[in-house]
């Protein structure tokens, strides 16, 4: 039995997160995904903020941004930037100078041997370097092409530059989240748009491949990331559609008006110097769960108030309930609170920071990560595994995070059928290699 997408070859021209998540999912599910990269062009925010960050830069800053292996840039920093490296598993990488006639010829040969292409560059980028839809169709008539522009390929916003956070601002998400009592300037960037765009993108490619199997027809899919994010705001959109109501920010409370529903302060073992900063989420979704919470708390006097038996009453007294519950949780261990509350049927869990994930019993039990050695012998680290559990075609890490140009030999020789002499020429003319131009900072 083969993986679900065995035998499907996907060209990956993606950048940052949304597109790369789509190609990661396709790779996890068995497709042969080939990242096509250029040693002479630095794509910002795809293999790092900079190709060669200074040792000082990688010693400071948040783990997710500059936490390079052992806090050192290493010999080829672009192969292990923490912001992106988890999206390189199960992928191949080839290099080719696409901004040259010869590079485009090589690329056309790859397109002819491929089933799909995924890209999420700024609108017009492929056209600018001469590999737009016409070029692609000529190279392979039945190719499935997924393009993921931020706002679509037409209309006044088509050339707007955006990351996930900007298109979520435009779609209304930013004004709907965050602290209700603070100015919107306190709202932190999130990138949920990248998540849904990536997942929808992989779904769309598989769906279009099904259409191709039935009709022989390829097609160009346009996924405007802003539009794709719409489902996450469904309740707000429907409230406006039904009632003309513009919802406000609800912080951590329930959009459906369930109460209590919030974060509460807690503790954890080994709080250390940060003084804790531990939180437990609790959501009471019905009256039975309220009884469960009462039991878990030892049924204190205040909670027996008959007005609190129904959600309506609890919603009215939400602030008061929050204060009481916080008093109870503040001195307790967050994991113990989770087990206690869940054993009484109440949804609750600690808010885990990145230092506690690997040790969580669920993460360990389901083996959500696996140790692999990084390229260049930089070290062995635990990387995320594909998160789908298939009983008959189990997924896994078939290839650790791919280094720039790591699979040049395989792609040029076996996929494209070039000879030794031709390949030597490509090396000489700057197509094939494993290092960015030394001038790139």
């Amino acid at each position, binding site marked *: 039995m083969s993986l679900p997408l065995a035998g499907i070859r996907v060209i990956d021209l993606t950048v940052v997160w949304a597109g790369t998540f789509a190609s990661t999912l396709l790779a996890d599910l068995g497709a042969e995904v080939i990242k096509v990269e250029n040693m002479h062009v630095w794509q910002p925010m795809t293999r790092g903020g900079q190709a060669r960050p200074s040792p000082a830069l990688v010693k400071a800053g948040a783990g997710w941004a500059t*936490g390079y292996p052992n806090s050192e840039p290493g010999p080829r920093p672009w192969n292990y930037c923490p912001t992106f490296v*988890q999206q390189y598993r199960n992928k191949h990488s080839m290099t080719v100078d696409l901004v040259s006639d010869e590079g485009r010829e090589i690329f056309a040969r790859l397109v002819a041997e491929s089933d799909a292409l995924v890209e999420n560059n700024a609108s017009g980028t492929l056209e600018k370097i001469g590999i737009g839809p016409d070029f692609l169709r000529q190279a392979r008539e039945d190719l499935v092409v997924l393009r993921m522009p931020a706002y679509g390929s037409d209309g006044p916003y088509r*050339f707007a530059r955006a990351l996930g956070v900007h298109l979520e601002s435009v779609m209304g998400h930013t004004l709907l989240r965050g602290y209700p009592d603070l100015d919107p300037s306190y709202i932190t960037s999130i990138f949920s748009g990248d998540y849904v765009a990536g997942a929808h993108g992989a779904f769309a490619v598989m769906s279009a491949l099904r259409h191709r199997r039935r009709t022989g027809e390829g097609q160009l899919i*346009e996924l405007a990331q802003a539009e794709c994010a719409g489902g996450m705001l469904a309740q707000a959109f429907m409230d406006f559609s*039904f009632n003309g109501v513009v919802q406000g920010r609800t912080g951590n409370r329930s959009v459906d*008006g369930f109460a209590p529903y919030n974060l509460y302060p807690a503790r954890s073992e080994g709080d250390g110097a940060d003084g804790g900063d531990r939180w437990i989420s609790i959501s009471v979704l019905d009256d039975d769960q309220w009884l469960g919470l009462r039991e878990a708390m030892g049924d204190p006097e205040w909670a027996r108030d008959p007005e609190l038996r129904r959600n309506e009453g609890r919603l009215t007294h939400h602030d008061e309930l929050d204060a009481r519950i916080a008093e109870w949780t503040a001195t307790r261990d967050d994991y113990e609170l989770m087990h206690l509350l869940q054993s009484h049927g109440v*949804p609750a869990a600690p808010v885990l920071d990145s230092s506690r994930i690997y040790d969580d019993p669920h993460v360990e039990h389901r083996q959500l990560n696996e140790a692999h050695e990084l390229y260049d012998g930089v070290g062995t680290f635990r990387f995320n595994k594909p*998160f789908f559990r298939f009983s008959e075609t189990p997924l896994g890490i078939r290839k650790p995070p791919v280094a720039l140009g790591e699979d040049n030999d395989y792609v040029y020789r076996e996929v494209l059928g070039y000879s030794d002499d031709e390949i030597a020429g490509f090396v000489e003319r700057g197509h094939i290699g494993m290092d960015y131009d030394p001038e790139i900072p």
Partner: protein
Amino acid sequence: MTSGPLDGVTVLDLTEHIAGPYCTKLFADFGADVIKIEPPGGDPSRSVGPWHQGTPGPERSGTFFYFNTNKRSLVLDIEHPDAKAVVERLMRRAHIVVESQPAGRLDALGLGWRRVSSLRDDLPMVSITPFGHDSPYRDYQVSDLVLYGFAGEMYSIGVQDREPVKMYGTASLVECGSAAATGAMAALTAAELQGVGQHVDFSMADAQFNGVDRRHAATIGFEFAGRRSLRAPGPAAGMLAGVYPCADGYVEFSGAAIRIPRLNEMLGSPDWLQDDKWWQPGVNLIPDLVEEFNAMFLPWALERGKREIWAAAREAKVLCGPLFSVDELFEDSHFSDRGFWSTVEHDELGEVKLPGRPLIMPASPWSIRRPPPRLGQHTDEVLAECGFSASEIFKLSTSGAIG
């Protein structure tokens, strides 16, 4: 009319609330026939708002409306002794089963994966649960908040001296639903190409732990360097990074100083910005200059509206987005001219406008062919298609198995 890419696919849908229904909505909106089994009281999402014109009712929920377009509804009490035969008949006709019942519930009813695989060896079944069928937390429950706080990147969202803060509404559940649809589509592909039926144990927590919204990066950043990812001390105040006030609201920028010429163009090449100090590499890492820059930038922003600022940013290719409210978005011509919004005619509610296609697939398009179903609207129709006679349907109805 051209049909969707999933034309001819029948989905047996035992999902409820948000994540599962979003997964099967994608199947339905792209052409599949989705048969939704609802318990006698209906999917719990029929019991939450927003209500049409503020009036509650099982056919008036905006949440149910959005997440259940194009589906057919069959009301069945799966605990009823007569229900098993009905579900099995539906399984025989389906190409994929998607369910979000509490882990173990279908097994206890003899309708879990073991039964599915004994009925058919080519029928995939996707089970969507908070933590999966094999986990120490298998029976634990979540909400969007509990899930996102535990497995998503919530801890680093917000400001330092306050609690972390979640996304809007049920966004984390919708993320999971879209990921589940990807897994379901792969399982369907394997069934169609290789004749393999299999169980997909989809854990929403796992889908969040692997989430591309920084969690993947925060996790490996800690593994690589032992450094945590924490909440910021206050509003983002980079050299154009964060949310800024303007004349009529707010605009969001990111990392504009990385490309000073573009920033210069957006601001109209003001004299003060021609000083060499602004053009040195890494200027955005020098706190005094960042502060000085923001002091110069703010008056410019406060004199302009968000649309004007965004137009200037677009022209200069600066990363920027205005903070629109939902009413502004509904009125925005870019999205309406592109055909983003859809309208559906509903028996009880009349014409309803709702967000439309998540993506455009021209040769096999997304479409809304049916409004969300009324509770049990298709019970008789679906049972008849499965070969139940009128008298059998009548018997099931009087025994209380169907509604």
